[in-house]
C-alpha cells in the first residue's frame, strides 16, 4: 500500500478540475437565481445558496471519508448498500407525498431522496455482478440477472412516481452494452424459426441497445418537433415541419459521414460502410416520418396523453408552458448574455420559468451568460464525460471500469435530458443537472459518485 500523501499525485486532476468548475458555476448560478437582498451573504444559511454550501461542505466531508476507505472495499459493500437503499425505497413509499410524489425521506429542508442514492447503489452492485462473472456476459440468465438488479430499484422508484430517475436507470443498459451485452441469442431464436434462414449472428442483436436508443431519440425528437415550424437560411417564406427538419438533419449527417468515409473505415470495408450509412439513413428517415404520421393519425385524446408524457403539454393553459418559458430564457440570453444576476425571465422572483433553481437551472445560467457561457458549460460536461470514459478504459480491474462507465452514463443522461429540455430537444422530465441544480440529495449523490470514481482510479495500479 502506498501512503496517503501520494494521493494528490495519483488523483485524476483533469476530472477533478472539470468537476470543481461545474460545482463552482452551479453555486454561482444558485446564488444569482435565489439571491435575496436581505441576506446577501453567500453563507446565509436560511437562503438556498447557503443551504447549497452546507450540502457541498457535507459532500466534501463525505468525499474525504471516501478517500480514507480502501478501494477494494467498494465491491465488498456493494450488496449491503444496495439492499439498504432498497429498504429506504420501500420506506419512502409510506411517507406523505410532497408535490404528488413519495420521494422524500425526513422532514423539511433536511429531507433526502433515496432515489438519488439508488443510482450509486445500483452502479456498485451492477459493477460487482458483471465483473465477477466467470462465464461470458451473453447468456440469457446473466443478462436477466443484470436486468433484475436494475429493475427492482427502478420499479420502486416508478411507484413514487419519479419518471426522471426511472429514465436515468436505462443508462445502465449502455454500460451493459459496453460489457458485451447482446440480444443476439433472442433475435437469432426468433429469426431462425423462419425456414431457410440460419444466421450465426446479427448486427441488430449485437448492437441492440444503441440502435434502440437511436430509434427512441428519433421518435422523441420527431414528436417534440412535430408542432414546430422552422425556416432554412435563405428561405424565410417556406416554413418546414419538424419531421422534415429531422430528415434533413439525418441526411446531412449521412452526407458528412460519406464525405469522411476514408477516415472511418478501411478500404476493404468501404462498400459495406456506404451501404450501412445509406440503409441507416433510409431506415431512420422512414422511422421519423412514420412516427410523425402515426402521431398525427392518433385520436385526439391519445395524442394528448403522449403530449402530456413528453411534456409538450403540461400547464393547465394547454400550451407547453414550461418548455416555452425555458427556451425564451435560454434564447434571450443572446451571444453574450444579460450579465450575472441579470436574468429577467428565469429569476425566482419573476417566476416565469418554474423550478429555475433546480431542474431548470440551465435557464438562468444560459440567460445570464449567453452562448458564451452555454458553450463553456457544454464543453466542460463533454470534457468530463469523455475523461471518465478515458479513465474507465485505463482500469485494470473490470469492477472499476464498469463503475466508471456507470458514472459516465448516468451523468451523460442527466446532462442530455436536462439541457435537452431547456432547448426543446427533450421532453420535460424533472431531473437535476449534476453539480448545478440546487438540492441536497442530488449534490451529495453526484459528488459521492465522482469521489468514489476518483478513489478507485487513484488505486488502479494496486490492482493485480
Amino acid at each position, binding site marked *: 500500500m502506498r501512503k496517503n500523501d501520494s494521493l494528490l499525485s495519483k488523483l485524476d486532476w483533469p476530472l477533478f478540475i472539470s468537476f470543481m468548475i461545474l460545482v463552482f458555476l452551479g453555486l454561482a448560478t444558485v446564488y444569482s437565481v435565489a439571491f435575496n437582498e436581505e441576506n446577501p451573504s453567500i453563507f446565509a444559511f436560511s437562503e438556498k445558496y447557503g443551504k447549497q454550501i452546507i450540502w457541498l461542505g457535507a459532500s466534501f466531508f463525505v468525499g474525504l471519508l471516501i478517500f480514507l476507505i480502501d478501494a477494494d472495499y467498494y465491491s465488498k459493500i456493494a450488496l449491503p448498500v444496495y439492499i439498504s437503499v432498497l429498504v429506504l425505497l420501500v420506506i419512502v413509499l409510506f411517507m406523505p407525498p410532497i408535490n404528488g410524489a413519495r420521494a422524500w425521506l425526513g422532514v423539511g429542508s433536511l429531507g433526502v431522496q433515496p432515489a438519488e442514492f439508488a443510482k450509486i447503489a445500483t452502479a456498485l452492485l451492477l459493477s460487482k455482478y458483471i465483473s465477477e462473472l466467470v462465464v461470458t456476459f451473453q447468456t440469457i440468465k446473466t443478462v436477466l440477472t443484470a436486468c433484475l438488479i436494475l429493475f427492482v430499484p427502478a420499479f420502486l422508484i416508478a411507484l413514487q412516481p419519479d419518471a426522471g430517475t426511472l429514465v436515468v436507470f436505462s443508462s445502465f443498459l449502455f454500460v451493459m452494452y459496453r460489457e458485451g451485452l447482446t440480444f443476439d441469442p433472442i433475435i437469432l431464436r426468433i429469426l431462425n424459426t423462419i425456414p431457410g434462414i440460419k444466421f450465426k449472428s446479427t448486427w441488430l442483436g449485437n448492437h441492440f441497445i444503441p440502435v434502440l*436508443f437511436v430509434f427512441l431519440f428519433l421518435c422523441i425528437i420527431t414528436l417534440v418537433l412535430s408542432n414546430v415550424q422552422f425556416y432554412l437560411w435563405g428561405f424565410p417564406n417556406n416554413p418546414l415541419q419538424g419531421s422534415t427538419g429531422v430528415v434533413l438533419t439525418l441526411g446531412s449527417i449521412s452526407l458528412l459521414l460519406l464525405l469522411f468515409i476514408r477516415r472511418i473505415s478501411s478500404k476493404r470495408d468501404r462498400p459495406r460502410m456506404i451501404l450501412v450509412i445509406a440503409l441507416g439513413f433510409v431506415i431512420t428517415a422512414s422511422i421519423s416520418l412514420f412516427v410523425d404520421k402515426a402521431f398525427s393519425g392518433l385520436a385526439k385524446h391519445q395524442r394528448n396523453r403522449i403530449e402530456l408524457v413528453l411534456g409538450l403539454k403540461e400547464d393547465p393553459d394547454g400550451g407547453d408552458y414550461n418548455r416555452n418559458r425555458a427556451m425564451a*430564457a435560454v434564447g434571450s440570453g443572446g451571444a453574450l448574455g444579460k450579465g450575472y444576476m441579470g436574468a429577467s425571465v428565469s429569476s425566482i422572483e419573476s417566476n416565469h420559468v418554474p423550478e429555475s433553481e433546480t431542474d431548470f437551472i440551465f435557464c438562468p445560467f444560459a440567460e445570464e451568460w449567453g452562448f458564451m457561457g452555454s458553450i463553456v458549460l457544454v464543453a466542460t460536461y463533454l470534457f468530463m464525460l469523455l475523461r471518465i470514459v478515458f479513465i474507465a478504459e485505463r482500469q485494470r480491474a473490470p469492477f472499476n471500469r464498469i463503475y466508471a462507465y456507470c458514472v459516465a452514463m448516468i451523468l451523460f443522461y442527466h446532462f442530455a435530458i436536462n439541457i435537452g429540455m431547456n432547448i426543446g430537444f427533450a421532453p420535460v422530465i424533472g431531473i437535476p443537472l449534476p453539480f448545478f441544480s440546487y438540492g441536497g440529495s442530488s449534490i451529495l449523490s453526484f459528488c459521492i459518485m465522482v469521489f468514489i470514481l476518483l478513489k478507485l482510479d487513484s488505486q488502479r495500479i494496486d490492482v493485480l
Partner: protein
Amino acid sequence: MNIANRKYIIVLFILVIGVLYSLRLFYMQVIDDTWVLRAQEIAEKRKEILPPRAVIFDRNGLKIVSNKTYYNLMFIENNISRLDTIAFAKLLNWTPIQVRERFAEIKEGEGVYRNKSSGKKTPNYQKKRAYPFLKELSLEEITNIALHLDNFPGFYEEVTSMRSYPFSNGANILGYLNEATRKEIDKDRFYRPGSNIGRSGIERFYEKELRGRKGIRYVVTSAMNNPIESYANGKYDTIAKQAPGLKLGMDITLQAYGELLMQNKKGCIVAIEPESGEILAMISAPSFDPNLLVGRRNIGLNYPKLATDINKPLFPRPLQAEYPPGSIFKLVQSLIALQEGVITEDTGFPCNKSVVGCHNHPNASGVAQAVQYSCNPYFYAVVRKVIQQRKSKNTFTDAEIGLNLWHSYMNSFGLGKKLETDVSGQRPGLIPDSKYYDRIYGRHQWAFSTIRSISIGQGEIKLTPLQMANIAAIIANKGWYIEPHFVKSIGDSGPLPVYQKKNYTMVEAKNFSAVIEGMRRVVNEPGGTGSAARLKDIMVCGKTGTVQNSQGEDHSVFIAFAPMENPKIALAIFVENAGAGGTWAAPIASLIIEKYLLSKISDSDKEKRIIEATLSNFNKP
C-alpha cells in the same frame, strides 16, 4: 466487432449529443431572435411615462395653464381572470350589462386595421395591451374603487394629468386638449389610445413644445405580470421630461378685465405691445370658461352646448371674423397718399357731401384735421389721387396700375394676408387687387369711381380685428411691425427669432406725424369723434370707425395707441352692432389703456356703464 470497440459507439453518442446541443444553442442564442422577442413579451415590459404638459405663464409670471392629477382605471384583458362582472359592476355602481357594453365599446372603438396589400382585416384591439376602462376619475372616485381592485386582477389605476386653468379667461386663445384620433396616433408614435393632443389655439400650435419628452422604463415583470425590478438596472431607461414652460406676452389681468368689459356683448379686443409685437390681450366675446373643456367627460358634456350657442362663443373672432374696417381705414389711406406724394400734410379738400355722405364739420385743411373730423369726401379725394395717378392715359389702365400699387402698400401693412402669428386658424381678410375687380367687372371695365367705397373702408374691404390692432401698432412704431404673437419665450430661451424681425411698411417714418397728430386730435380736441377715450394722465391717440353693415346696426370700432410718446400699447376694439365707434369702442379702449398702464380706473361711471350694458343683438340664453 470486438467488444472493446464498443467504447467508440459510446463516445460517439456523447459527441453527437454535445455537438448537436452546441449547434442548437448557437442557433437559439445567436442566430434566431424569436426567443429574444418572446422573452420581451413575457418578462420585459416597456412602459411609457408621459410627463405632465408644460405649464403656461402670463407676461408677469402668473400661472395661467397648469395641470391637475386624475386617475384612469386601466385593464389588460390577458391579465383578467374570472372577472366577477356582478361584483365589478356593483363596485362602479353600474349594471353588469353596462360593464359588458363598455368592453364592447372599447374593442370597437379601436377600429380595424386593413392590410393594404393583402386586404386582410385585423382588429386594432390587442388583448395584451392596456386600455382605459374608466377615465379621468377624481381622487375620491378612484379611492373607492382602488380599495377593492385586488379582487379584480387585470385592472389597475393609472395617474394622468389634465389641464387646469386658475383663471377662467382666454379660452379661445389657449385652446383645449382632446383625445388623439386614430389617424393622429398612426401618424405620430408619441400618441397612444387615450392620450391627449392640443386641439386648438396655443395648445395646438405649440403641441410639440408643450408635450415634453416621454420617459421609457423597461421593467422585468413576473408571471403574475407584476413589475419586479427595472431591466438591466435601468441602463436603457429614459426619464420623462416635462417641457419648459411657455411664457406668454399676454397679461392675464388685462385679459380678464377685457372679458369683463365685453360681457353680454359680441366683439373683440386685441391689444399689442407695439415695440415687441407681443399680444397683451385678445378677447373674443362672448367667451367661456376654459375649464369647461377639460377632459373627455367635460368635453362631451359642454362642447355641444358651446357649439350650438347662438352667440358662437367657440368662434375666435379676433382671428377669424372679417369685418369691414370703416373709418379707421382712413389712417392707412392717408399714409399711402403721403408716401406717394399725391398730397402733402397740408393738402385740403372740401367736404363735398354730393360725392359721399358726411356729418357736419368745418372743411379740413390738412391730413390731421381730416382724420380728426373723419371727413368722408376728403378721403374720397385722397384715394382717387392714389388710384388715378395718370401714369397711363387710359383711365381704366391707370386705375389698374394705381390699385395694384395701393394693394402692395396694404400688403406691407399686413392686410389682405395672414400674419405670421403663432395661433392657427387665422383668416387673411380681403384687400382687392385688379384681378379681383377684373373678375367682377371684366378687365379695364372699372375705374376709381366704380370702387370708391374702398376709400372709407367699406365695400369689399375686410380686416380681422388682429389686423386692425396691428395697424395701430404700425402707426405707434411709425412704419414697422413685428408679427403679433403670443409666446414671449419658451422656457428661458428668450424671444423666438421669428418674432424679432421688424417688418417695414412701404411708408417712411416721416410721413406718420400728420396722421398721429390727427389721432391725437380725435381723442383730445373738441370736434374729435373719439373724445370718450380721453384720459387725464395719458395722451391717447385713436381713430373711431362706424361700420355700416347689412346685418343690422353699425359696428362700433376704435383703434388706438398710448401714450403718444413712446407708445406701450396699441389696440383695436370691435363691438358688433353697437352703433358709433365713439360711443362704445372708444370708452372701452380708454379703460383698457388705463388698466394696463396705470392699473387703476379713474372714471368708475364709465366702467360701470360698459360692464352693465347688454347690447340688443346679444342673445341671452
